[in-house]
């Protein structure tokens, strides 16, 4: 098997509806926040180049496109994820409770090779709001109990901790590689729109 290193990291964001998944992504990539809540329309995925340990990698962050709203995320969404970001809303205890099922769902659907050490990151979002209901301690305890998942409290609105959280996400996704896990399982897979898939010497039957 070829052991070409990956330079593209696929990161998926999971969590209940309206915890701020799209806003976090927008804040991080576009440095923008919109107060208007739309159950995710037009949010697809964003790409951002990041430097981790002196290496430039492209991080592709995938939003749920609203398909989580009625628990209808298909298995295709989870394919090939290098890191999974679990988001809850610190003012909505239910969204915190559901982290368990989101984590389980991810492990079942993505079935990573080493589920024990798969990089997750947990974000408690909306810390700018006053009516906080989930304490930092409680969240940290949960993260510790799940093999020490890194935990950040963020505000997509104020841009608090967002940059730092995503740096960690990129770093942890890449660290997997150090453990020879990020080796490309499928070295020859094709994306249809990208030009570099074309063989340079058109060796075909246009005789």
């Amino acid at each position, binding site marked *: 098997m070829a052991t070409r290193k990956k330079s593209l990291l696929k990161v998926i964001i999971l969590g209940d509806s309206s915890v701020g998944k799209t806003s976090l992504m927008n804040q991080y990539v*576009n440095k923008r926040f919109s107060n208007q809540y739309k159950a995710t329309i037009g949010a697809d995925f964003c790409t951002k180049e990041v430097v981790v340990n002196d290496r430039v990698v492209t991080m592709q962050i995938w939003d749920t*496109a609203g398909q989580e709203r009625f628990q*209808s995320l298909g*298995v295709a969404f989870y394919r090939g994820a290098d890191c999974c970001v679990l988001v809850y809303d610190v003012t909505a205890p239910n969204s915190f409770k559901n982290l368990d099922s989101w984590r389980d769902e991810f492990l079942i659907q993505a079935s990573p090779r080493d589920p024990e050490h798969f990089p997750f990151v947990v974000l408690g979002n909306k810390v700018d709001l006053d009516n906080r209901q989930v304490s930092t301690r409680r969240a940290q305890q949960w993260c510790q109990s799940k093999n020490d998942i890194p935990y950040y409290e963020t505000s997509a609105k104020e841009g608090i901790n967002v940059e730092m959280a995503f740096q960690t996400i990129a770093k942890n996704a890449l660290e997997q590689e150090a453990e020879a896990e990020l080796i490309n399982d499928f070295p*020859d897979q*094709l*994306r249809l729109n990208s030009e570099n898939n074309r*063989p340079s010497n058109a060796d*075909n039957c246009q*005789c």
Partner: protein
Amino acid sequence: MSDDLPEEFDLIVIGTGFAESCIAAAASRIGKNVLHIDSNDYYGDVWSSFSLEAFNKLLEQPSSSVRNGTYTWHNATEEHGQEQGQEQETTSWTRESLLEKSRRFSLDLSPRVAYCAGSLVQLLIKSNICRYAEFRSLDHVCMLYSKELVSVPCSRSDVFNTKTLTMVEKRLLMKFLTACNDYGEDKCNEDSLAFRGGTFLEYLQAQRVTEKISNCVMQAIAMCDASTSFETGMERTQRFLGSLGRYGNTPFLFPMYGCGELPQCFCRLCAVYGGIYCLKRSVEDINWTESELLVSSAGKTLRAKHLVSAPSQLPATLATHFGDPEPRLSRGLFITSKPLGSEELNKGGGGVNFLRLLTTSGEREACLIQLSHYSGACPEGLYILHLTTPAVSSNPAGDLADFVAQLFDPNASEILYSAYFTIAAPAAESIANAATPIYCTAGPVYEQDYDAAIENARHIFSQLYENEEFLPRAPDPEEIVVDGEDPSALNEHSLPEDLRAQLQDLEQAAQQMDIAE
């Protein structure tokens, strides 16, 4: 959990199979408010892929669309030891060890390959849905010659390097293919004029090719039988040739992780444009008035201007309007520890290979897709063999027996698991003649690519939304203007140099890709 599902839609689509998903995406893309539901807890309906465990369960519970299902574990407990070579690690597979890796399997109900320049690839690129999909180029197109599986040379270098053909045969093949490639450019070409109205085989024989080349062309390139017309054979040959040299070494692609991924790509686009998704939601009844359809589902009445449904997901009260499901495809699925054919056909752990087969009498055909772990559809060291033939009976094993016998011994020790089932759907005429305002999709038919399925979706879409474009290009996320931003930022002239060049390239590419409509 409270059900805050809205109740009014422009379009409700029932079933997340390939054609339904295309229609849902296309409607959502032009701004229609779409609800897409499926009674199953998975995407894809009869176009889906399953883990080994889920696949077995599916076969145990016959439905209107998947029936006559059986599966057998073969002597899967036999220990093989390490008698062949030291460095070669021989794993012995048992039923338990296969089930342990259940989720590493992606077993397709309706597998097929796509031509690199075929309708699926064109549609994916044109609509930009290709960003959600990944493919594997097929490693070999094969043919059966004197009971041997041989690779059909697909590129110029293949033709020259192949040991299958003699020097003379190589020249003949190149000459023949060149003639086919040029056919149609010179309408008055007398050489081919004489064969119009005849069969492709007659034309081929007149070119004085050897039997081997004739086999190669008929079986694999033109995919003909003795009665195929000259025009059809020519068209298919050109389709094969036109798909070469684009991606990889053969004219075919297979979706990574199986064909069940494809409907999900279309569904994602639908969702990105605001479509609402609800799996595990069945429909109890459908009624209608002059102006709208009323869908009773989970204690709610959902209203829509239009309704599209898969035949398999219609409520019983309505299914009768569309006729009884008839056997469409007879399917066989085998898990084996040894790929078919020589080492050469399976370099580096096994090829993703394609083979079209005819019965010994030449009357019926089947296709075989062999998947190795490179397809993402099975664990390393194992291979999936998918056999598909148009159903002639309700006995899929019987329909496929002739083909299986040509390919392998079903009792061989490397065959670990075998399954047979029938895919059924109402006849096309009874769907077309149903007197309801519901648009019913056609279900899978026997074809290599997705031409018929896409045409079915396109046709229904054009009936729903006359004069609207079917899946125009969806912009990349970078091109979407975030609210508050100056929309003129997307003006072509304000784009940086490299992006502008890219845009022009894309436009040019899009023009070249245009499908004649």
